[in-house]
């Protein structure tokens, strides 16, 4: 399988960071690009969603969310008892791995285009649905019998934090406007998507480079976790997708979603809700290790898993 060129931009960013190039993408450009990506993904999902009867998706949705919620519950004991991390750190990292990464998902979609594989368009909705529960579970794990939780603030942060807000907003606009209504926006939101993703990966590479050092400091356990955990989650996703009767592409995307770890929504939410957790640990693992692992090795593996389980 040939390499997806967009991931080369990630390499370019990492190398710039490690070589101490003076390249930096201004923070506001990063914010503008993430608004673009979140809206574009949301719009695409909304347009797709309009093609399916909503009722028929509810059952499937509940199952997927319930199984997705297992991920932080699997991760927490591993971190706490095998890794001997503090309760707060274990819970925060578990929340990062239970939640999802929009960019990893986008690289997955890009690969499907490359391979000419179809997928169920409504899966984008799960990007939204799977982002939240893990964060709530993370906070419960951190606070269980320990201290008070600022629930109001946390839930507000989660539901009206910009990532969920823009994804849901885009979904609704895409759903209401339909493919015809969105067409004049296609030139910006869909045609440029891959180019913008390349830019974004350049920036992610720069940031990831600065995280690798932090990760090294915490040793082999966390690095191992950051590779093994996505494989566990992806297996869960592959089996779930196959049992639910998704296509090969759909099964692969679900596995990718489960395997991805959050580094946008989760860090902000955990910083507010579980401030005593060390963000260097969770961001170091999810962004410094799991993200590159997923886009280089994980995604091809998950595609192979989806093809294998479908007997291809």
């Amino acid at each position, binding site marked *: 399988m040939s390499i997806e060129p967009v991931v080369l931009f990630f390499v370019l960013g990492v190398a710039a960071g490690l070589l101490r190039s003076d390249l*930096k*993408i201004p*923070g506001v450009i*990063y*914010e503008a690009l993430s608004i673009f990506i979140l809206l574009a993904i949301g719009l695409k999902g909304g347009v797709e969603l309009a093609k399916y009867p909503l009722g028929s998706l509810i059952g499937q949705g509940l199952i997927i969310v319930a199984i997705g919620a297992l991920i932080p519950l699997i991760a927490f004991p591993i971190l706490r008892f095998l890794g001997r991390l503090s309760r707060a750190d274990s819970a925060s990292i578990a929340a990062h791995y239970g939640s999802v990464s929009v960019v990893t998902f986008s690289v997955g979609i890009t690969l499907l285009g490359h391979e000419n594989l179809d997928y169920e368009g409504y899966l984008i909705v799960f990007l939204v649905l799977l982002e939240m529960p893990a964060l709530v579970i993370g906070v419960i794990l951190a606070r269980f019998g320990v201290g008070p939780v600022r629930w109001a603030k946390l839930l507000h942060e989660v539901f009206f934090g910009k990532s969920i807000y823009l994804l849901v907003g885009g979904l609704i606009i895409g759903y209401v406007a339909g493919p015809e209504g969105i067409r004049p926006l296609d030139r910006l939101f869909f045609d440029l998507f891959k180019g913008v993703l390349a830019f974004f990966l350049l*920036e992610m590479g*720069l*940031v990831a480079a*600065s995280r690798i050092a*932090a990760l090294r400091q915490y040793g082999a356990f966390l690095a191992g976790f950051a590779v093994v955990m996505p494989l566990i989650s992806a297996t869960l996703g592959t089996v779930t997708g196959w049992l639910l009767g998704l296509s090969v592409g759909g099964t692969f995307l679900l596995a990718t979603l489960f395997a991805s770890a959050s580094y946008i929504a989760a*860090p*902000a939410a955990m*910083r*507010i809700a579980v*401030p*005593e957790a060390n*963000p*260097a640990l969770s*961001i170091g693992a999810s962004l410094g290790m799991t993200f590159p692992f997923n886009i280089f090795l994980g995604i091809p593996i998950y595609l192979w898993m989806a093809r294998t389980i479908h007997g291809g």
Partner: protein
Amino acid sequence: MPVQSMLLLTILTEAVLEDTMIDELMALGAKGYTISEARGSGTHGVRSGKWTVSGNIRIEVVGDAALIGRIVERLQAQYDRDYGLLMFTTQVELQN
């Protein structure tokens, strides 16, 4: 208006706390505040400002000793342990 001696409190902390901090200041009775973007390094490591989660803000509040004292006490109790936070005061002469 005669020149008035006041304290200027400078707070350097994480950008993610902006809304929370404004709520605290207003609740404690500040008449105003000024915020600007910053980046830096301290006991909590380098905060490069390269993306939101790693940016700092500088919050400045001008007020009398009582107000500034209340703010310092509250922020120290509430945020100092878990967040990057540096606070210092300067004597300033209000000119208008």
